């Protein structure tokens, strides 16, 4: 299911890229090739592969990615978003249910963090954010989380702002030292 939606998303992206590419002016006559040629090339490429992607995703009985021959027999490793992506057998996200409330709450925490970072101050917002994320992910030990968050926030604040000289938002309560 995810794959079908995402394949349609790529098709939509291809349309946007092509439309935007065509809206770029041709450039003046002095140049052999203007700012438009490469975007057009990329747009056409994206359109071709995304159409094939949609066809593959909607083909009856389309499985979410056959396991590559080399690693068949390898256990599909749990969640591995990092590194070089989704190889290693099957489509990794599909094998378990997605806990949507956690995902949405995490995204909410991220949005709030970004918006509060400057007005509230770096270490203040970070402490609150740290505790919130830990809670979203199922931690119920509030005291430990607050302590860990505060230590991490203050340590990074002093390391970056005071020692490395990279200014971070001081926020409401300015630390004296």
């Amino acid at each position: 299911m995810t794959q079908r939606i995402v394949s349609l998303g790529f098709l939509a992206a291809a349309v946007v890229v092509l439309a935007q590419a065509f809206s770029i002016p041709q450039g003046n006559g002095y140049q052999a090739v203007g700012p438009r040629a490469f975007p057009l090339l990329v747009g056409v490429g994206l359109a071709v592969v995304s159409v094939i992607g949609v066809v593959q995703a909607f083909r009856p009985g389309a499985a979410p990615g056959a396991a590559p021959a080399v690693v068949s027999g390898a256990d599909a490793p749990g969640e591995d978003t990092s590194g070089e992506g989704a190889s290693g057998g099957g489509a990794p996200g599909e094998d378990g249910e997605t806990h949507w409330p956690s995902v949405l709450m995490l995204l909410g925490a991220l949005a709030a963090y970004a918006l509060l970072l400057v007005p509230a101050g770096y270490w203040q917002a970070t402490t609150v954010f740290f505790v919130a994320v830990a809670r979203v992910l199922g931690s119920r030990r509030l005291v430990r989380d607050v302590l860990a968050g505060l230590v991490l926030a203050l340590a990074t604040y002093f390391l970056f702002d005071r020692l490395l000289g990279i200014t971070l938002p001081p926020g409401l309560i300015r630390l004296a030292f």
Partner: protein
Amino acid sequence: MDVLGNLLDGFGHALSLQNLLLAMLGVTVGTLVGVLPGLGPATTIALLLPLTFVFDPVGAFVMFAGIYYGGMYGGSTTAILLNIPGETASIPTTLEGYPMARRGRAGAALATAAIGSFVAGTISTVVITFLAPGMSNIAKLIQPAEYFSIMVLAFVTVTSLMGDSIVRGLSSLFIGLTIGMVGIDRMTGQPRFAFGVPELYEGLSVVAVAVGLFAVAEAVSTAAARHRPAQPPVTVAGRVGMTREDWRRSWRPWLRGTLFGLPIGSLPAGGAELPTFLSYNVEKRLSKHKEEFGQGAIEGVAGPEAANNAAFSGVLVPLLTLGIPTSATASMLLIAFQIYNVQPGPQLFDQQPVLVWTLIASLYIGNVMLLVLNLPLIRVWVKLLSVPPALLTAAILTFATLGVYSISQSVFEVLIAYGFGLLGWVLHRAGYPVAPLILGAVLGPLMEVQFRRALAFSEGDPTVFVTRPVSLVILLIAVACLVGPVVVRRRTKPALPAG
């Protein structure tokens, strides 16, 4: 100056007290972050990018050499103890390393990985030392049309080797190329793909994109899977070391692994996946203990780990001499170079000799430090595996945000990183690899420059890419790499179980 003189010069810089400390710090922090479950070397570098910010370029790259090796070694530790590969290239290590650990042989698996990496890394660094300057001279002769074709080849091979669907890989790649075009065109001042948003005129920051795709996506993925029980790490019983028998069975796989990893990694088409899988299959075939494969055969850890490390070193050849990264991790290094306004490529060895040679000298030092630091400290690293996932995720997000904000001083870019985190997670769920995306975003702008130069030389004639013989040959190889796997897969399909 000759190579040895240059190298000695590099050691002179790298062995200063400050740089030695930076190398040590890099290896330690790299291992520390790399050993965290799910964080591969690319993510490690993305998260640690801001730390190097305050140092002069030479110091920063000395530290990067340490982070590079440390992050990779940390990745193999999680592969062995948790069955979680930090990246595709570590998958073979999980096949034998994890069973070894479960049979109480974690110490031997970790040791053969560490010593094998040291052997492979050192041999590869020696070869790179002599190969890279020569390659750089050849690279100077490359014309724009050929340059463009080499980049096409790099894209195609990296995309078709990674992940299981070329179509999905290419889709990611083209999105990455589009991301690279956002902003004002450097040659004409024409805004492109900016949608009238002033913040986008300077382009999408690749740092924000990379941190989002790697680190933030990992956190979202952990949140999505929170109800699934986590796998407890295997404990390291006994001493970390190898018996005489282990040594006897490891040294040939180390050398063979190096032989696979170094040449393939050094090509502007390689990456680290192919050599590690090749090495695994060859060791399985050659082993006198075939029955042990799948149950924890030490050859299956020794070979791929050496191949991985050799390929990682080899990848530096196309990166430094051509400016072409062939893995997600190499893309992160290129981003780091760009932050310091250093453009790797044919001119790098002439323009930045101190930087290059200090970096190469640091590779030797980083390798030694890794061995000296990691074998005794392995038990400390293993403790990190028991940090609760909730706190770990909170910390990852904190560092990701700190990294993007401290580089850009912009909340907008932090939001971009979060957005790409969500995108990365969605793509991963749907089976789209993200490495081609970051590769496209980093390399796209350079590719366009060569594309336009080639067309300027040919006075706008687009057939220039196929009428110049060298360019044509490279493009034909690229087509073969694109079509080949599809044909092979079609032919072998009946043999594979459906889905």
